[in-house]
Structure formats: C-alpha cells, structure tokens
C-alpha cells in the first residue's frame, strides 16, 4: 500500500491535538510531544509514536533520524490548516457561501466591540489590497 493513498486532508481529534503541540514546538521527538500534552490527554509512548507515524503517512509531518530518535516537523503551517478546515466547513455546511459562515459567527458569538472592530479592519485592509 503506497503512502500516497494515505494522504487525507483532515485530521482526527487526537491528531489535531498532536499537530497543535508540534506547531508550538516546531521540531519535536515523540517524547517532547508526549510531554507537551495536557495531563488528561497523556498517551503511552507507543501510542504517541503510532499517531506521529500516521501523521507522517498522511503527509502532515516529516521525520528525520538523529541517532536512534526521530525528529518530527510539521509540513504545513497552522494557518494553512485553518484555511483548509474553514474552506471545508464553508463548502459542506454553509453551501459554499463564506458570508453565511461569517454571519453565523457574528450572530451567535458574543463578539465585543473591539473584536468587531478588528474584523472590520481586516475586511477594509483586504478590500484596499484588492483595489490595488
């Protein structure tokens, strides 16, 4: 079975937890990631190693061998994965209309004046950039 087959676009809950730790750490061994996990989510060493190996098969991380240990590094940034997830959410749940997604976010979350101001600033910046 080739590894290409295994390349899926999205992460399971536990894999996302691992990737979050890896994004924070930059490069890490199995033990580093294991130590960085919250105490309630601690996993056995073999389970942690298995999850990192699956992430490598899926193409989310790469590994390099240093001595007897493998050092893992994310192949995509957190921002890229956020964009991918949001795009998927927008396509599947909001009929491919990002405006509906934003409307739901603005309606249902108790956003402060400050946060709304930040969102407005972001949109204005994007509109200015597009005009250029």
């Amino acid at each position, binding site marked *: 079975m080739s590894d290409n087959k*295994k390349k899926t676009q999205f992460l399971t809950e*536990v894999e996302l937890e691992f990737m979050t730790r890896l994004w924070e750490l930059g490069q890490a061994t199995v033990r580093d990631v294991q130590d960085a996990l919250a105490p309630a989510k601690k*996993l056995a060493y073999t389970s942690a190693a298995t999850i990192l190996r699956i992430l490598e098969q899926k193409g989310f991380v790469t590994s390099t061998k240093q001595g007897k240990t493998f050092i893992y590094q994310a192949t995509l940034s957190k921002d890229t994965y956020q964009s991918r997830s949001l795009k998927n959410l927008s396509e599947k749940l909001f009929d491919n209309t990002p405006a509906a997604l934003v409307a739901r976010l603005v309606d249902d979350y108790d956003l402060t004046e400050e946060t709304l101001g930040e969102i407005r600033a972001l949109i204005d910046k994007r509109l200015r950039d597009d005009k250029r």
Partner: protein
Amino acid sequence: MINASTLLDAYVDVNLLLVFVCVLWFAFSRALDLFGLSYAVTARLRMLRMVFLAVLLGPLFAGLVAGIDRAGHVQPAQQVNLTDFIVAQYLQGRFQMNASALEQLLNLRARLAEAAFSPAGQAVLVAAMLGAALCMAGLGWSVVKLRRVLAEAHRWRRIGRIDLRLSDTITVPFSTRGFRTRIVVLPSSMLERASDLKIALGHEFQHLRQGDVEWEIALRLIRPFFFWNPAFHIWKHQGEELRELSCDRQVLARRRYDVAAYCDCLLRVCHDGLRRRRLLAVEVPVVALVRTENRLFGGRPAALLRRRMLSVIEGRAERHPRLAVAVLSGPALAVTLTAAVAIQKPGDWSQDRIMLSTIVNLERLQAVNGPVPMFGSPGF
C-alpha cells in the same frame, strides 16, 4: 454423474434438515439450561458448528448409506426412512387421518418437484434466483466497502500473519482476513484509551483463535443459497451470539482483564458505533467487537450486549468444554445424520405402503360408487 434432480434433492434435504436441527437445537438448549449448563457457551458453539457441518454433509452421508444399502449390506430391519415410519405408525392405528390426505402429505416432495415445472413454479424459481443474485450483489458490495476501509486504514504492526491496522473511518474494532493474512482493524481514536485498546485486541485475537472469521466468511458465502430459509438466519444468529459469549469468557479467563473495565469498553465502543452507524451499516464479512445494527432474526443489539455483560459479570468458568463437546456432540450428530438418511425418498414399495395405497384406492372406489345401499333404503 450427478444430475440436476439429484442436486435439487440434496438442496431440499439440506433445507429440511436445517429446519429440523433448528427446532432440535432449541429443545436441546432448553434441556442444557434445565441441567444447569446454560454457561457452557464454548461447548455449545462447537456443537452448533459441528451440527451445521453435519447438515451440509447430510446428503453425502445419505448417498453413502444408500450405496451401502444397494450393495446389500443393510438389513431391511435396519433401514431408516421417515415415510416408512409414518406409514407403519398409521397402519398400526397410532394416529387418525384420512388415508388420501396422508398419501398426499407423503408425496409432497414429488408434487413440489412436479410443480417446479408449472408456470407458478417457474415464477417462484425465478424469484428465488433473483433473491440469490441480490444477496450475491450485496456480498460483492460489502466486500468492496470493506476493501476501501482496509485500504484507507494505516498499517500499525504485524504479528506473524496478523496485520494490525488503524482506521479513522470506523468506530467498532473488527477482524477479517485476506487469502493469507488475518487482519485486525481498530479505530485510531482508540489509541487515546490504552485499556480499551488492549481489551479490543485481546477480544479480536480470541476471535481469530476460535476461527470465527473463517466461519463468518463461509456463512456469508453460502447465504445466497439459503436466504429464503428462516432456519438458516436463526442458526447464523445463534452462532453469532454464542461466538461473542464464548469469546468474552475466553478472553476474561485467559487475560484476566477487570470485568468492570471490560464491560465499560463494550459500552463505550457500542456508544461510539451508534453515533456513526452509517460507516459500516452494510453487513460486511467481518467479526466485530460489538454489533450496533438491527438484523432480521438477529434480535436487538442492545439485548445482545446486555446478555454478554450479564454473562461476564456472572463469570462462571466453563470447565472442560472439550469433554462437554465430546459427550454431547455424539448424540447430536447421530440424530442429525439419522434425520439426513430418514428424510430421503423411500426406495422400493414396502408392504406397508402397498397397504396404504390399497386403502386409498378403496376409499376412492367408495367415493365413486357412493355409499353401500342398506336394507330399506331407496336404492335397495
């Protein structure tokens, strides 16, 4: 050379035998319960399988006996035939019935064979073939679905010829097999729960040890031929229940898991399976840790889970299952194989059947001639 009629006879025999042993099995199970052997699930499972094999081999055994009979090695007094037995009982007055009706009942199989060539019979045959084709298509689809799940799963470890895989798309662990390798697939989310992972692996390994996967695949392969026979489905589900009960017992006895942790694991997996039921909703040829879907003749999965948990909580050890099988399977196999011989069409005309035929003819003559006129009646 085996002709179509012989094959059809063998097929009918197997189906009749299945119904017979199904009824017999429930009576036998009830008897075991009364003798306080309700916990002997492993012995029951092995017997169930032995009897099933005896049913499938029944027509061959009957053919062998017929061959020995034709060679003149069987005395007439030793011959076993259900038709001859019923006729003898009738002539001895053990039960009352109209002779013509009895003869019609005894010739039911021959009449059914004749009816198969009538337009209605042909329509039934076509419907049966369509049903079998649908079952085969269902099996093919389930295999495609299973292959997809296996292809998307990640190789985890390999122990001898057992391939361990982790899948993001399943919620219930299961085991299956390829031509050479046996495969255990676990949900990748289970990596978070080390104790559940150990229990699920222990359970699936026990299924592999018991040959449950091979039985499941074999039964799925022959199902298209017996899809219309409720006895087959009842038999299959009895086997599935005993398989799980036996597996639970063996795993707990072998590995000494905590019973509460084991039950918790079953409940959690069942809960996860119910949440994402659609992923493996098609009945695939696998043996899963828990069943989450309702099936015809299979009872509700919750009821099965409850019986499993009660069984492990009760925790009665099954002593000497092999001895129990050795003692109990002899009579069960003897009855099954005797029934296989007894339901065969009778050979030559026996004295009793000639007598029955004479009675039927006399009844017919009486019906044609009308009642015998009595003294003083108008026709005298």
